[in-house]
């Protein structure tokens, strides 16, 4: 028997609420809001309360998908990144950097978001960058 309560941070929005994930024998079975966290003081919104459900969801994407002959096909990260880089270059060369827009995520770290906007502005050359949390 291996039962743990693992302190972590909600991935759903920028508030960064803290909770414990209940992990029994390697399976995540529940979420318990952290009462001593100064951010959320033992409270969560409905998204945070259900974090444990998506982690092991069968619907979760675990590999990049590329549409080949109209069909979404699982490919390696290398193939997906090569394809994306090539197409971004082609589009930028043909239509200019502002023809591209980039969406980042509340579900990654601050640092990753910083890198992402840097990539958009410095490497691609556009300010068209936004994120999913601006709903």
């Amino acid at each position, binding site marked *: 028997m291996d*039962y743990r309560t693992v302190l972590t941070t909600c991935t759903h929005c920028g508030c960064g609420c803290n909770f414990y994930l209940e992990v029994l024998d390697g399976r995540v079975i529940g979420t*318990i*809001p952290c009462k*001593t966290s100064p951010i959320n003081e*033992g409270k969560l*919104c*409905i998204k945070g309360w259900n974090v444990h459900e998506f982690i092991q969801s069968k619907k979760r994407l675990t590999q990049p998908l590329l549409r080949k002959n109209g069909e979404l096909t699982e490919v390696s990260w290398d193939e997906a990144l090569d394809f994306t880089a090539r197409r971004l270059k082609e589009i930028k060369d043909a239509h200019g950097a502002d023809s591209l827009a980039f969406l980042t995520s509340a579900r990654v770290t601050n640092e990753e978001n910083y890198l992402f906007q840097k990539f958009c502005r410095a490497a691609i050359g556009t300010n068209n960058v936004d994120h999913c949390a601006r709903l």
Partner: protein
Amino acid sequence: MSEQVKNRVKELLSSGKIKGFLGLCSRNGHIAPHLFVNADDLDNLVVGDKLAAGDSRYPLNRQLINLVRAYPDETFGILVRGCDERGLTALASWNQVDPNKIEMVGIACPRELALACECLKPYPESFVDGEKCEGVSPESVARIDTLQVKERFDHWYHEFSKCIKCYGCRDICPMCFCNECSLENNELIRTGEIPPEIPTFHLTRAVHMAGRCIDCGLCSEACPADIPLRTLYKKVADIIDKQYGFRTGYDGAQKSPLNFLGGLPE
């Protein structure tokens, strides 16, 4: 930090009487619910008073249910205050836990916590730490009872209208163990819609807590909108007591008058 609790847990774990002890521990600068399995690893055991008495209580009984469902043959120890003991008594009467497979390590709550909780019985039957203090009757209920019906309705309407429908009151509740929840039933509540229907959402839950709620207050503490849910459920408990002479978790032999499980009445 409680040496008495620690010593008792050490004794239970080293004698092999329990497989693990569900309690609280201090780690990462926080107080966390924790399963202790090693008698020599109890240094961080605490009772959940970080800045004030009982300010970091967790739904340990709820976690216990998860453990016993996965390991029904094992015996577990658990930290209990008065409310947690009431919870276990009631959970046993609902066949959710086997009292023979639970070793309670009790602590009595200090006066300040009993006052904050307006707790009728701020201590378990037996405890290794703390001192028994007298129960406190619920002023919050008496205050609302003095209001005229219209004012009372306005009061609750105002409170309920703050709800963000997080379901936290249900999710934290150690007495919510149903496989299918009425609050997710489309016939009763419009699911997938915000704001919730007022007062249907809250009154549905209040009715469901009748004969169930053991007045631990964890729901109020988890409510992001600071709705005084506990006061509402205290009132419901008073009504059940008045009508049926039943208070949840006080007498294990007595079943809830609203217990419809187990076949039709004769």
